[in-house]
């Protein structure tokens, strides 16, 4: 398996003593590594990026420290009035991604012109510890894959190992890695207390080939999931974003069958479904970076709830119903929910909202808010 590719790596003075810096120096040639200086224009640059700048930001790595609040609620949870969301919390240990999906929301989200890895993970863990000790029995779910893939750079940071060990102390809390990579070998020897879920965002091979550039192939992701399962980790799949294409029914049927063939429903913690959605402003960058011969850029999208562009609501409901029926016909025990969807779509797809579904109620039960906690 090859190392993530970078053309240039900068290390802050404050990050020099970190384990990550030492590891980066041991893995990458010295010629591409330099100490970050305060007058470095690229590192200081902020604001929207051009397509070329965005591409370059994937090839430049900056090891630095994060000065803000690491632990936050998932963006979906901040739109509770419009969307039905599942109490997911995020821990951002870096930003940008070394893979290149056409629909990636980072295209409209990031304003830093480089890939960042935050080296002060101990501070993040201290923040989590404080929260965990205040609410040890609350079932918080914490994911690390919001603005960076949880595992695609993990062979550089090895943060997975520290996080698994940390979460072992709080069995009611759930750690979730979310990835499109197959990089799991670096933590498989760490014992889990069963509260770490390794999850994969998956799509049929035709969609991966067309839209998820630089990611692991489907069979590689599923093989990595099998390895994690064997080592006692919980696994989950996000069939998200489902992408409409002429053969979508056949291809998503094959995907459902593949999952059903490889895994028992009881072994898969959750399967979440979502359809393609993105911020309207990112369509220009997507058009410039991927042209219009992509299932994503050429999709028929309309402004919907949360002001994102989404498929027509009836098509979304059709896609959800199709996939739910397919999975349930293979095995009624599959535990499925919708990600960032409206109550109307939940009702069309399941004929009820999550709080009316015993198997999902715990995910959606209101929890203390991080901000409330920090202000108290």
């Amino acid at each position, binding site marked *: 398996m090859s190392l993530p590719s970078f053309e240039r790596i900068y290390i802050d003075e404050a990050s020099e003593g970190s384990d990550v810096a030492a590891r980066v120096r041991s893995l990458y040639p010295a010629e591409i590594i330099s100490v970050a200086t305060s007058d470095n224009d690229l590192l200081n640059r902020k604001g929207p990026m051009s397509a070329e700048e965005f591409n370059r930001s994937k090839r430049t790595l900056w090891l630095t420290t994060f000065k803000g609040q690491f632990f936050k609620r998932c963006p979906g949870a901040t739109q509770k009035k419009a969307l039905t969301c599942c109490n997911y919390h995020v821990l951002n240990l870096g930003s940008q991604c070394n893979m290149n999906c056409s629909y990636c929301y980072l295209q409209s989200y990031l304003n830093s012109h480089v890939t960042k890895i935050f080296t002060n993970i101990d501070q993040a863990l201290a923040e989590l510890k404080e929260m965990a000790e205040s609410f040890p029995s609350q079932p918080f779910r914490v994911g690390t894959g919001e603005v960076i893939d949880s595992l695609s750079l993990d062979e550089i940071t090895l943060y997975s190992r520290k996080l698994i060990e940390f979460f072992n102390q709080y069995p009611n809390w759930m750690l979730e890695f979310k990835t499109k990579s197959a990089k799991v070998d670096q933590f498989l020897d760490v014992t889990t207390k069963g509260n770490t879920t390794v999850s994969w965002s998956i799509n049929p091979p035709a969609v991966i080939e067309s839209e998820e550039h630089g990611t692991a192939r489907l069979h590689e992701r599923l093989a990595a999931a099998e390895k994690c399962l064997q080592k006692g980790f919980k696994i989950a799949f996000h069939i998200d974003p489902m992408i409409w294409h002429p053969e979508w029914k056949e291809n998503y049927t094959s995907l459902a069958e593949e999952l059903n063939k490889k895994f028992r429903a009881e072994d898969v913690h959750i399967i979440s479904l979502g359809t393609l959605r993105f911020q309207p402003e990112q369509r*220009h960058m997507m058009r410039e970076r991927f*042209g*219009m*011969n992509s299932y994503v850029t050429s999709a028929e999208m309309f402004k919907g709830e949360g002001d994102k562009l989404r498929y*027509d609501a*009836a098509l979304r409901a059709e896609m959800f119903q199709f996939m739910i029926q397919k999975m349930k016909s293979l095995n009624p025990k599959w535990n499925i929910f919708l990600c960032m969807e409206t109550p109307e779509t939940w009702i069309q797809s399941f004929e009820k909202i999550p709080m009316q579904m015993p198997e999902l109620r715990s995910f959606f039960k209101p929890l203390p808010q991080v901000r409330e906690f920090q202000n108290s």
Partner: protein
Amino acid sequence: MNFKTWKEQKKVKDQDLIFTGSLKEILHQELFSKISEQMASLKPSFSDGISFLESATDLILMGHTEELFENSTEFSAWQQSLKRLRYPQTALRDEEQKKKFASLPWPAGAKVKFERRGDRSGVELKVFISGAPDVTKIVAALERVEQELK
């Protein structure tokens, strides 16, 4: 009116036409130029014009050529024509939905207007009520509509 004048009159900034940055091939740029000149001659509003040109850009990049000029002598017909090219499945779905809604037993005298609002299509219904009996009739009619929609 030519495109340059339309841009001046409508105070169009380069940022408003950011999508044209994707037109790298000369053939595409020429096609865009022809469309924008023709569009300007039809004097659309700022927002109609910008969204029309963005659709045209998408369609040029998707490989459309001559069909982009169908109905190009009247702006709203041309706009609809481009919409059908850019959103072919939704156009088809909306057409079917419109027919289905038109066949429903709406309350007598109700004004029913089919429309798309963002990611949903449906009807706007206007009814006139002068007293409780009207409400009863309308509710009964809407219950029949509900049954047919289920």
